[in-house]
């Protein structure tokens, strides 16, 4: 199986990027062995979404990786020297990836698809313009990463 696991808080502006992508991905037709999950702000509880799959794509908002609206496909090791959280939720993706290494052998192939966001805006619904513009491109990238 191949899993797409989307993270984010749609109540906090651009932090909702992953959840926005989730909504878009659900509109599309996918090969039988692809499953899509909305992990929201789950921390360690999201470990469940990485069971029974050989490949996993994480979708999340990024900070300090590039220009606003820029899309990145990262490997877990690209986050290794950034122990602090990327975004506002709990302990963040790096912590989750570390935990995954402890409890999963062998690990699925992991890629992180993210967008550099403008700002996490508490209690604001909707994405900023540049982040919104990145949505279709990110969706196409994920489609290309998971061919039939």
């Amino acid at each position, binding site marked *: 199986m191949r899993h797409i696991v989307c993270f984010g808080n749609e109540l906090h502006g651009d932090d909702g990027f992953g959840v926005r992508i989730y909504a878009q991905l659900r509109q599309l037709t996918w090969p039988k062995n692809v499953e899509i999950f909305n992990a929201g*702000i*789950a*921390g*360690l*509880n999201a*470990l*469940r979404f990485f069971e029974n799959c050989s490949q996993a794509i994480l979708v999340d908002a990024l900070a300090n990786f590039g220009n606003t609206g820029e899309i990145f496909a990262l490997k877990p090791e690209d986050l290794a020297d950034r*122990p*602090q*959280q990327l975004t506002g*939720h*709990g*302990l963040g993706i790096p*912590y989750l990836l*570390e*935990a995954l*290494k*402890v*409890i999963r052998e062998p690990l699925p192939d992991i890629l992180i698809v993210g967008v550099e966001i403008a700002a996490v805006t508490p209690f604001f619904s909707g994405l900023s313009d540049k982040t919104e513009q990145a949505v279709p491109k990110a969706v196409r990238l994920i489609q290309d990463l998971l061919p039939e």
Partner: protein
Amino acid sequence: MSKRTIQIDLNRVEGDLDFQLELEDNKVVDARCIGSMYRGFEQILISRKPKDSLVITPRICGICGTAQLTAAVLALENLAGIAVPPAAIRIRNLCLMAETVQSDLRQSFLFFTADFCHPKYDDRSFYQKARTAFLPFKGWVHRGALEHSRHLVEIIALFGGQWPHSSYMLPGGVTTPASSRHIIDSLSILNKVTRWFEQNIIGTDLDSWLALESADEFFTWLTAKEAHADGAIGLFTMMSRGIGLHHVGFGTPHMLSYGSYDDPADAGTFPPQRKHLFRAGFLNGDTGNVEPFEQAEITEHVRYSWFQPYTGGRHPFQGQTIPDYQPHSDRYTWCKAPRYQDKVVQTGPLADALIDGEPLISSLYQAEGGNAWLRQFARLRRTARLLHKMRETLNELAAHPNDPHMIPPDKLEIPDGEGCGLVTAARGALGHWLQVTDGVISCYQVITPTAWNASPKDSEGRHGHWESSLIGLTVDDPDDPVEIGHIIRSHDPCLVCTVHVLDTGKRMTLWP
């Protein structure tokens, strides 16, 4: 005299907490515990149908949603006089215990013990052992806790369909009976966790560990075998005491417990008279006596909180929650200040064990008082008791296979009136107070365990428990106050704890 303020953020998904400490010559002279996020659950519930609380309140917390659900359903049952069958009480208890054990294992071994790997201790003889056992993602205890804690809540998913934020308890019972499949699956999860706990955490079997009844017995046991000393509890005890955590972090001497787990054998009695498996009570710190607990003695103050002012304290049924943010006043938090018999109290596993009369914890308390080590130790002692109680509960469910899991209430709707639901969550006493007028919720007041412990000052200017547990403490290095981290973590605020010093702008992370 050098004076400075340090600020400690305790950020978590469930709501944000900061500490502001005033230091004079490295000694904490004042402390303010700041709830920096307003949640508003009590307002969200106003004008809704009473049973909406079963869906909304489990969202208060991503760690103790089962406890919130239990409090919500008990409040509805209390209001309407709705009976519950023994099997439903057992299923509720089992799920509540699973949630508590998960939380306690994570608090202890993902957060508390990681601090022993702090570079401050690199000249201590225990340092290598600490890193081997407790270093995040590398240490054998940390890795084991990560793996084993996560399966426990699968028991809740079996009965509740999901965890967190499940809504499977309804007035009159639960939505699913305990099928033999549920019981077998639950036992298999429990067996795995128990085996790991025995081999890695206590270094002996559950029964021998639970048979230890006094401080002397415990300290003799600790050095009797290598497996005892080198188990996680042995290491944690040796390291905590090595750095003196048994001499600090006492806080208020008054303790409160609502009692844990309704007794299924007493299902015919309605709460709050229904017996508990672990007793309720109030430990009066002035006299040392445990007195009967009476919920009418609870009040909440707002003198130092960002709410529309009222005088003195109010019982939750007279409670008022009207936000009134005043950042430039002497008010400093979104938490109210709950008091019991007008006293500052603490709640949590230490209070629960002492009030229940658990012999080992009581003996250690008699010897050394309610210090930071004992508070954390009591949490792990509880894990052993709950693993044992969960097995007992599953066996009881298996012995009564066709018992009803629900007694359908006579009336479809919850009538007008008032009720309260009191439970013990992982962090201590949790209560919901509900009033229904003209068929809808007219008032809903929640007092969480952290509201008790992280309370600000009250109308009399008395500090809350966490605040008072830090006042008087001397720190070696105000730029890296790891002592404060230990004490704060013994209170189980959990997750990220970063410390920064305002006057230099330098930011430090205790862990992670």
